[in-house]
């Protein structure tokens, strides 16, 4: 029997969730006409929603930190030998815990919106009501089907441990950050519903909404980046993006959100594209939900699958279906009345943004299709099919090509009626500089392929043109500084594409069966296999191979890849050894030892990785700058 303390904790935590449930139910009163205009105690109530969930979550954290195996969740996912940080992150490294975190973040956004909102009262109330509806739904799901506070029937002094691959600092913070992204779009969704219900999708609505889109977008981008970086240094496959279904599940809302970010600019400036903005708002949040559903239901094979539990999947599908049918139903009836048309020329900022949306959403469609196609084929034809990375690369490449071009020129086209000649004048110098650079680099590195030169030219154009406009702006006054964020993000994107292509083209890999004293060569680098160490870590034993990178017979760097053997649960992992160089990374991974005296290793040379991370950093900082600017005004 679980101890009394645990019973109390479980009861109190569940009670807190019920409080949250009740307050959320009460907040939904704003949906009723009678209460829609009330300027009541929404701040207090949102605070209660937030703090009650927070306390429930803290109780769960406490259970994990104290290795309280009376809790089923702690028993299944933790172990006394786990380092403290991973006991903590074990809280959300499972289905129930991450669901509770999802709920907590819902309440966090609800709370911050309540205290910050400067929207019209009726609008604000509906937004809070919708958030509360979402909170209600998720808390119900949690309490009914996925409670983290269920107690064990028996006494257990030790837990079942956690997959050692998940015991990693980056992976510990990746879910929370990603969830701030996913869940942030719940508020965007609430804005959309409220706007539709009140027929208030206008400039003020757009202005109030935009910062929230930015915040969620920044978190989502950062979350995706962290996941990719983790995959790079942990999985040992040399890559950082595999078009894995769950990776795709995070990319899809990102694409939709980016399209929304641009679309809402038109709404703000020229009071157009109302229904499209609403559609994207609903779509982005739906994709966040779909991402959750795909992960948790286990209908896709992926390294991420938490629980192959069709029962849970069914509930989420039901929840998703209700949310979507309700919102798209509302959209069907209200959509046309929302739309206000304004005029714009074929060559204008507006049409440029339409092109942006068109390209981004085509990529979104491709990612979606590729991800669910195997399911589709399995269902209809009962055959198994693999949609690998090549599919995505081949289909998306031409679109990225167009994206580079339009991202470069559109910021220089005026609103309503732009002029091609004017635009050309503005980008004249940066284009010439880019072309020169492209040719110079091609000549210097002996690149003769036209495709390579074009790619260089286009990416440089984007980077340089964006940076130029940013530099001009920062000389003038603060009002114009608003575009600094945008220029940095756009330049970052250009750098990203360039680095990714360069990295893919020039990466090298060699596999060796190495005996001690062997010399391994790749790309002009010489490695000497020095020795094998046996290491004892906190909760593992490992075999470590030592390789010395030599230049002119002097040891310049040491690489120590390991194979680690964990006890609970019994698993073996391969730890990479990476040298992060300025222009190139060197990456050594050990395969499980085959013979006593020789081991199989892979050596990767991965150029431009730093530039990839830098470019993503630029994209994120651009977003942050935009948020800061908005808050200051």
């Amino acid at each position, binding site marked *: 029997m679980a101890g009394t303390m645990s019973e109390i904790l479980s009861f109190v935590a569940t009670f807190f969730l019920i409080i949250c449930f009740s307050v959320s139910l009460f907040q939904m009163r704003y949906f009723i006409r009678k209460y829609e205009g009330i300027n009541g105690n929404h701040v207090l109530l949102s605070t209660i929603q937030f703090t009650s969930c927070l306390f429930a979550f803290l109780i769960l954290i406490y259970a994990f930190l104290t290795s309280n195996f009376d809790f089923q969740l702690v028993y299944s996912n933790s172990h006394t030998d786990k380092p403290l940080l991973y006991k903590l992150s074990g809280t959300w490294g499972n289905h129930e815990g991450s669901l509770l975190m999802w709920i907590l973040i819902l309440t966090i956004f609800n709370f911050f919106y309540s205290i910050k909102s400067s929207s019209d009262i009726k609008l604000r109330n509906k937004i809070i009501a919708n958030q509360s509806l979402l909170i209600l739904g998720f808390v119900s799901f949690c309490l009914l089907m996925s409670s983290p506070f269920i107690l064990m029937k028996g006494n257990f002094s030790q837990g079942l441990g956690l997959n050692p691959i998940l015991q990693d600092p980056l992976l510990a913070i990746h879910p929370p950050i990603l969830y701030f992204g996913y869940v942030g779009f719940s508020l965007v969704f609430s804005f959309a519903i409220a706007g539709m219900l009140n027929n208030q999708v206008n400039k003020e609505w757009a202005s109030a909404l935009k910062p929230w889109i930015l915040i969620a977008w920044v978190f989502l981008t950062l979350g995706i980046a962290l996941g990719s970086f983790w995959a790079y240094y942990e999985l040992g*496959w*040399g890559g950082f993006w*595999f078009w*894995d279904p769950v990776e795709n599940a995070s990319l899809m809302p990102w694409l939709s959100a980016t399209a929304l970010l641009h679309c809402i600019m038109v709404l703000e400036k020229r009071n157009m594209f109302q229904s499209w903005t609403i559609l994207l708002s609903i779509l982005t949040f739906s994709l966040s939900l779909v991402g959750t559903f795909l992960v948790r239901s286990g209908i896709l*094979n*992926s*390294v991420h699958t938490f629980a*192959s539990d069709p029962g849970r999947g069914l509930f989420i599908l039901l929840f998703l279906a209700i949310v979507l049918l309700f919102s798209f139903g509302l959209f069907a009836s209200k959509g046309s009345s929302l739309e206000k*048309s*304004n*005029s*714009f*020329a*074929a060559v204008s900022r*507006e*049409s440029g943004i*339409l*092109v942006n949306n*068109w390209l981004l*959403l*085509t990529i979104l*469609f*491709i990612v979606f*299709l*590729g991800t669910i*196609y*195997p399911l589709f*084929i399995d269902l209809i*034809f009962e*055959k*198994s*099919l*693999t*949609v*690998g*990375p*090549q*599919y995505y690369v081949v*289909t998306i490449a031409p*679109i990225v090509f167009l994206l580079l071009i339009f991202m470069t020129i559109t910021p220089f086209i005026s609103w309503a009626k732009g002029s091609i000649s004017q635009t050309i004048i503005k980008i004249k110098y940066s284009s010439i500089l880019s072309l020169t650079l492209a040719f110079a680099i091609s000549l210097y590195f002996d690149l003769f392929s036209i495709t390579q030169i074009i790619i260089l030219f286009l990416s440089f154009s984007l980077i340089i043109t964006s940076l130029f406009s940013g530099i001009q702006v920062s000389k003038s006054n603060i009002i114009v500084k608003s575009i600094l964020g945008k220029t940095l993000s756009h330049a970052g994107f250009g750098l990203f594409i360039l680095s990714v292509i360069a990295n893919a083209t020039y990466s090298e890999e*060699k*596999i*060796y*069966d190495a005996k001690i004293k062997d010399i391994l060569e790749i790309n002009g680098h010489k490695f000497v296999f020095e020795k094998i160490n046996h290491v004892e870590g906190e909760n593992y034993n490992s075999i470590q191979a030592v390789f010395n990178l030599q230049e002119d017979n002097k040891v310049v760097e040491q690489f120590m890849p390991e194979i680690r053997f964990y006890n609970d649960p019994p698993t*073996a992992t391969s730890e990479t050894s990476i040298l992060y160089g300025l222009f190139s990374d060197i990456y050594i991974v050990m*395969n*499980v030892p*085959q*013979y006593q005296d020789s081991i*199989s290793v892979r050596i990767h040379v991965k150029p431009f990785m730093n530039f990839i991370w830098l470019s993503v950093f630029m994209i994120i900082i651009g977003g942050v700058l935009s948020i800061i600017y908005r808050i200051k005004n």
Partner: protein
Amino acid sequence: MRKISLNIIFILLIFQNFGYSLASTDSKREQNLFKEIRCLVCQSQTIHESNSELAEDIKLLIREKVSAGKTDHEIKQFLVEKYGEWILMTPRFNQHTYLLWIAPLIIFIIGFWFILNKVSSSKQKED
């Protein structure tokens, strides 16, 4: 049930030693082939990336067939006959995959049509 036994098989397969030391001498063509064949007992890895027993076996098979003068197409066809279409990382263009390859183009065109529509209807407002 089957998933558990596959996992057990997989873990066992990792720890078997049968000394395949040909890896560093693979030709570019062989390496490219390896990158196109899926490792069937791993989670979304190619046989190039995988170290599992089955991956090594299939690599050996491919090396043999390459030496015997078979074309890439023949080798892939052989593997598909034994293991099914899903052993290929990139889906081929056949009756099951028309939709997969053509739909993006269709959507692209539909999107373009939408824009034209929007622009022209907006121009009408202007006049």
